[in-house]
């Protein structure tokens, strides 16, 4: 409940409760007074009416007696009555009496109006049979027994004579006995008069209009114009009980629910006749209507007051609670983190405590805001850092997650693809996978708890295992190939990766060995290495063989060639005839060919095995070229070949002289074989060009077709393979030339055109400095 509500309630309590109490008290007192007053008024009304009614009844009784006395002169007796002439007389008498009554002062009763006048006069015999009447229809009817025989006081008959329409209306009948001279009752004279005089409408005359007054007979029937129908005692128990009590002599003054269902105040009194009760009723609603009016007015006033008080309270409470509420909302906003709220500040001079509070709060808010702004900056920086690290963390987490997945996938893959063995630090097996069991042919039960030595083949030496243990105990991964022995003593090879699984303290807790079966690979490797060994051996043998073969083949050539030479030396060893000389020359030339063949084969083999070695020496180009010129002079002269040598002077070379010579000899020899027998022309030229010395051998031979130029450097290739070829080469010469040129970091080139001759060029590199220096030293000498 907020302060606003509380204040309103407080105001209401202070202002309205006393009013309500006062009103309650006054209304109750007013009601009581009013009730009493009305009761008294009703009572007095009743009393006056009772007087009227009793007076009326007395008058009618007196009138009836008067009528009865008028029959005295007829000297009637019980017999005379039966006489029709007497009956006529009686008839005439009552008719005249009625007329007289109506015009007589006797009729001057009440308000002198026709309603209370005598309507009918009738005469009945002792048995109650009506024998004369002013209204002829009644003659022959019989009166009720109790009525005709009753005492004086009860000779009032109210409406309700049976089956007579005339009697059914509101009439009251008064009777008086007719007696003979002996004072014996011989009949009744009755007057019937309208009951209007005591009917409710008449009873109400002179009463306050809220009073209801009526008569009730001893059968609880209300005496009204249609009284017998109107009163139903069964439906009206309460009043009936009250009426019973009334007939027993009590005066009733009580509140009850009347026949119409209304709450009424009723007073009941018994009339002197004893068979009528008068009832006065006043509706309580009507009694209290002034009270209700008052209540309504008070309520209206109360409402206005209430509204006023509420407004006033609201205004006051607002002036107190609004700033508080505003503060509270502001605080709420601040709590939510919104520091941008504004407070309506009042001038500082305000004496209102609430304004001062608001101002103070505003100052506090400003302070907090500025502090918070500072903090915000700080928090922003920190938050960003936190976010960054969070992001990094998330990334790490993802990475770790992925790594875990990879690891788990890896483990699965590992288990599927490799033999896995895990031992504790004592070297006892604590885990093996199915593949390990399969390869080692041990069951898992046989392996668990055992040392991995169970599968040791004792193939590796102690150093091998020592190194392995040192590695993994140091926390590192060991890799190697291990030969193991299965349960059935068969051997198998594994490529092993043994890693320590480190505990939190960084020390190995377990060792995991991941083994891949490489037995087949090892078998292949062994075969391969054996094959390699064989190849090496065979190569070595080949080399030894060729070396030996060269020696053995050359050795017999020494005496052959030697003796041929000696035989040719006719000056020393005597003359031979021409045929003999020719033979000797043929033997020698074939021996020479054989020698060359052996030498070429050996060179080619060396080139193939890349075993050719070179002896680099320093020599003079002049000498070298002179030697070539000199050595070939004889054969060129013999073959009538125009042979020329051309070279720059004073050049020192630094290369393998013998091999270079071999190359040039080879090329020259080829040219000699191919130039025309008459005008053959061969020239050997040396030329310095940039960093190279180029040796060229030109000839005017038939030339080499373009399509065959590439092939001539291949082994055993000869352009002319016919049996009648004039060139007796081995087919290895150019191969060796190319090999030597390249071996000396140079190259061999060919220029040739069919019909125009052939030129071979050998390019060899020479360092320029070296060349110049050699030149200078030479010139100094």
């Amino acid at each position: 409940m907020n302060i606003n509500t509380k204040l309103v309630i407080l105001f209401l309590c202070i202002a309205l409760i006393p009013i309500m109490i006062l009103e309650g008290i006054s209304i109750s007192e007013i009601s009581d007074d009013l009730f009493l007053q009305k009761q008294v008024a009703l009572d007095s009304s009743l009393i006056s009416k009772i007087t009227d009614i009793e007076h009326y009844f007395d008058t009618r009784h007196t009138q009836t007696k008067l009528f009865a006395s008028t029959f005295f002169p007829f000297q009637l007796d019980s017999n005379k009555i039966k006489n029709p002439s007497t009956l006529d007389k009686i008839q005439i008498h009552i008719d005249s009496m009625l007329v007289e009554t109506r015009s007589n002062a006797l009729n001057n009763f009440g308000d002198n109006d026709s309603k209370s006048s005598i309507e009918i006069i009738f005469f009945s015999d002792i048995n109650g049979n009506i024998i004369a009447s002013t209204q002829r229809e009644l003659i022959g009817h019989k009166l009720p027994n109790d009525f005709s025989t009753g005492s004086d006081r009860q000779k009032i008959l109210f409406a309700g004579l049976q089956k007579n329409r005339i009697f059914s209306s509101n009439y009251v009948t008064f009777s008086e006995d007719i007696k003979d001279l002996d004072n014996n009752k011989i009949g009744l004279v009755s007057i019937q008069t309208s009951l209007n005089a005591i009917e409710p409408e008449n009873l109400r005359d002179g009463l306050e209009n809220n009073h209801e007054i009526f008569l009730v007979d001893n059968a609880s029937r209300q005496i009204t114009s249609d009284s017998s129908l109107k009163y139903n005692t069964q439906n009206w128990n309460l009043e009936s009980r009250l009426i019973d009590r009334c007939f027993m002599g009590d005066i009733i003054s009580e509140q009850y629910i009347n026949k119409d269902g209304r709450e009424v105040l009723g007073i009941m009194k018994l009339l002197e006749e004893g068979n009528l009760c008068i009832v006065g009723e006043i509706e309580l609603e009507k009694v209290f209507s002034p009270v209700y009016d008052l209540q309504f007015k008070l309520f209206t006033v109360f409402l206005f007051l209430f509204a006023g008080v509420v407004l006033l309270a609201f205004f006051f409470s607002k002036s107190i609670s609004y700033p508080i509420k505003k503060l509270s909302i502001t605080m709420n906003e601040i709590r939510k983190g919104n520091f941008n709220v504004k407070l309506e500040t009042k001038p500082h001079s305000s004496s209102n405590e609430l304004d001062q509070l608001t101002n103070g709060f505003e100052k506090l808010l400003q302070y907090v805001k500025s502090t918070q702004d500072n903090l915000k900056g700080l928090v922003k920086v920190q938050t960003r850092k936190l976010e960054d690290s969070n992001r990094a963390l998330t990334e790490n987490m993802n990475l770790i997650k992925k790594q875990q997945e990879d690891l788990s996938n890896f483990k699965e893959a590992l288990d599927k693809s490799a033999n896995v063995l895990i031992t504790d630090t004592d070297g006892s097996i604590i885990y093996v996978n199915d593949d390990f069991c399969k390869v080692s042919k041990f069951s898992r039960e046989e392996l668990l708890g055992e040392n991995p030595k169970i599968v040791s083949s004792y193939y590796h030496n102690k150093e091998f295992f020592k190194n392995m243990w040192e590695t993994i105990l140091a926390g590192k991964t060991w890799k190697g190939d291990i030969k193991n022995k299965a349960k059935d003593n068969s051997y198998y090879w594994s490529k092993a990766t043994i890693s320590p699984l480190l505990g939190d303290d960084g020390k190995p807790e377990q060792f995991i060995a991941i083994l891949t079966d490489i037995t087949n690979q090892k078998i292949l490797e062994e075969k391969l290495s054996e094959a390699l060994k064989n190849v090496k051996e065979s190569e070595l043998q080949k080399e030894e063989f060729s070396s030996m073969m060269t020696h053995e083949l050359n050795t017999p050539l020494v005496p052959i060639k030697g003796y041929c030479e000696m035989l040719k030396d006719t000056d020393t060893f005597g003359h031979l005839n021409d045929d003999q000389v020719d033979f000797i020359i043929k033997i020698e030339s074939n021996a020479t060919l054989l020698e060359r063949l052996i030498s070429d084969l050996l060179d080619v083999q060396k080139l193939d095995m890349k075993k050719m070695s070179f002896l680099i020496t320093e020599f003079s180009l002049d000498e070298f070229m002179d030697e070539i010129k000199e050595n070939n002079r004889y054969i060129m002269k013999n073959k009538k070949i125009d042979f020329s040598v051309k070279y720059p002077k004073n050049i020192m070379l630094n290369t393998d002289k013998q091999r270079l010579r071999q190359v040039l000899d080879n090329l020259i020899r080829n040219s000699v074989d191919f130039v025309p027998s008459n005008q053959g022309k061969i020239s050997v030229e040396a030329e310095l060009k940039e960093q190279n010395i180029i040796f060229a051998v030109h000839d005017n031979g038939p030339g080499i077709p373009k399509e065959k130029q590439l092939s001539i450097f291949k082994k055993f290739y000869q352009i002319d393979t016919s049996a009648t070829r004039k060139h007796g080469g081995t087919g290895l010469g150019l191969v060796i030339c190319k090999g030597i040129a390249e071996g000396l970091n140079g190259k061999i080139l060919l220029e040739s055109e069919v019909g125009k001759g052939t030129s071979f060029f050998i390019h060899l590199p020479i360092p320029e400095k070296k060349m110049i220096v050699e030149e200078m030293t030479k010139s100094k000498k």
Partner: protein
Amino acid sequence: MKVLIVDDNRDITGLLSKFLKAKGFDNVVTNDPRDGLERIKEQKFDIVLLDISMPEFSGIDIIQTLETENILKDQKIVIFSATAFTTSQINDLLKKEGIQGCLKKPIQLNELLTAITS
């Protein structure tokens, strides 16, 4: 001028001996390398013709022995070999003091003559 010819092949020593004799050189022939070594040790020759490729005790062994005994530098030697003359072993030999040259088998007799006389 006195020449020592060391070669396990009798045909070759015979040829060389006859040729040198005909050309006017005194020569001693031995087919046993060890005997050849002993002769070199005993007596200084004007020139020694030494075959490299000999069974059991090769020309190289003789040269090494001479070298270790410090005789090599005083003795002119021409070696000859049937195997390739550019092998590194031969090249090493040629660098040594006393080794005059190397002749490739089959030997050209005029080349031999040149080698001896130079």
